[in-house]
């Protein structure tokens, strides 16, 4: 099975100039964890996910200082959450995005997701337009359905 047979073809995306709060609201409304960011020519320029939102809110040093626990929500977090209203997606998005093409096999998509630690990958055609998106859950479902 190729990824084009099981990918989600109706792709919701945001532009780099979309308001970050609006993009986050869209994620929550659609109950998905990430959206591709495309320019006016439908070329992929980044990914905006829950992880980017959390990275914007929490201090960057949390991963470097070892184990500790917040007993209260710091004031800075509240300020950063409010600051999202004045930020654009391009300020938060991840620019380096793992993608696959339409003819990638299911197993290869699974391998990429596992080794590159991604939960969703945009699918591009030969012209590098975004033509679909495939999530890890979809891959698992399709793989197990194929071999049942």
């Amino acid at each position, binding site marked *: 099975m190729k990824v084009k047979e099981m990918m989600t073809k109706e792709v919701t995306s945001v532009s780099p100039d979309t308001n970050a709060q609006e993009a986050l609201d869209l994620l929550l409304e659609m109950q998905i964890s990430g959206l591709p960011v495309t320019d006016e020519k439908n070329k992929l320029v980044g990914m905006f996910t829950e992880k980017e939102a959390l990275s914007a809110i929490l201090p960057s*040093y949390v991963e470097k*200082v*070892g*184990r*500790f626990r917040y007993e209260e929500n710091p004031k800075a977090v509240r300020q950063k959450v409010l600051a999202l209203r004045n930020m654009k997606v391009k300020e938060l998005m991840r620019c380096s995005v793992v993608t696959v093409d339409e003819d990638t096999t299911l197993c290869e998509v699974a391998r990429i997701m596992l080794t590159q630690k991604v939960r969703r990958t945009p699918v591009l055609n030969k012209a590098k337009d975004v033509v679909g998106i495939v999530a890890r859950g979809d891959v698992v479902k399709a793989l197990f359905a194929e071999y049942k």
Partner: protein
Amino acid sequence: MLGWGAKILGLDLHQALSISIFSVSILGTLFFWDFRLSFAFLGTSILLITKTIDLDNLIKFSSLEIILFLIGMMVLIGLLKEAGLFAWLVSLILRIRNLSATKFLIAISIISALLACAVDEVTSIIFMVAAILEICDYFEVNPVPFIISSVLTTNIGSAGTVLGNPIGILIATKAGLSFEDFITRAFPLMLVCLGITIFILMIWYRRTLRELDQKIKELGANEILVRLISVPPERQLKICLGIFGVTLFFISLHHRLELFLGLETNTILLIAPLISAGLVMIWKWEKARDYIEKDVEWWTLLFFLLLFAQAGTLKYTGATDVLARKIVGITGSNPHFLTAAILWLSTIGSSILDNVVLVAAFIPIVQGFQALSVNMQPLWWALLFGGCLGGNITLVGSTANIVALGILEKEKKQRVSFFQWFWVGLTVGLITAGIVWVALVTLPIYR
């Protein structure tokens, strides 16, 4: 240009080449910091291809024992971080009774300095900056003065022991100095510099301290702050503290143990962290690979390895002996002049260059003075303190400065300007270096 300079100094081809390659590496680190490892790889390869040095001597000069020491310490620090030791230290700050701005400044300065004595300056500054940002966020005050204070005292503290800065272990092994030598000679002088620095900072930032006092009155202090961050005391934390304590114990007694066991100088100093790290990796066998792959800074260590090898080439070719003779020709073998020259050159140099690069370059020159019957003792201390204190003068003077300001810019979108740092850094740098100079030339303990 370098060839012409080499001719004037009376250097031969290999000597000129070794200086050129090393100079290019230094300039590369100055202007292309991200590519420093590439410069180190290529420069070392050129030295081998041109037969400026051979493989056996290259490996000998690369000071693998120091690299292994640093690896052992990094594994232990990874263990400590995972156990939450640093969060525990920060929660100690938050528990200061009747917190005031002055107490806060003194506490972060002393903790920064002492932490930098025990672990590497980059690890200690990351945690101090994190603590300062969290606390200043709560009190809604500008964190910049406190971050600058913490960095200045971190750089000072890193001169106090062999552990604090890679240049400490580098000088200890090349000069045959022990941990005890550092504790009796470097640590007290570091404390004097620290005290003077805290006094300077209290005056320099008196307005910020008044603002913080006002905020502490408005917002209330410890009852809420103490709940902000916590690390529950656990058995694991106590065990990790014990492991680190035992390692420090053996490091502090290494000289006496080496004499007792008839071992080569600094053997136990260098292997104590390896033994502890080895035992830790047995205890935490499922995380052992993580400690090695994630907590050991391989990029930095490889750079050091090749930098030391290139610096060793300067000695191998005799280039630094020529330079040493030229310097003595100018200053005479008057120890006071030489001490001043080494101290102030390394202070000024360290304000621009990375201190490990600078000290690695100076060591063979200082070793060259030995052949000229110069008393080496004060020169080594001059190099240590110059390398550490000079890092305070500019905001690029030390890795701790760059790391701290990078975090500040990322979290607060605040940039410290060159002169915002320079005036306080220069004041602290010059005064502390001056104190060290007076101590080195007047006190018999340094002769």
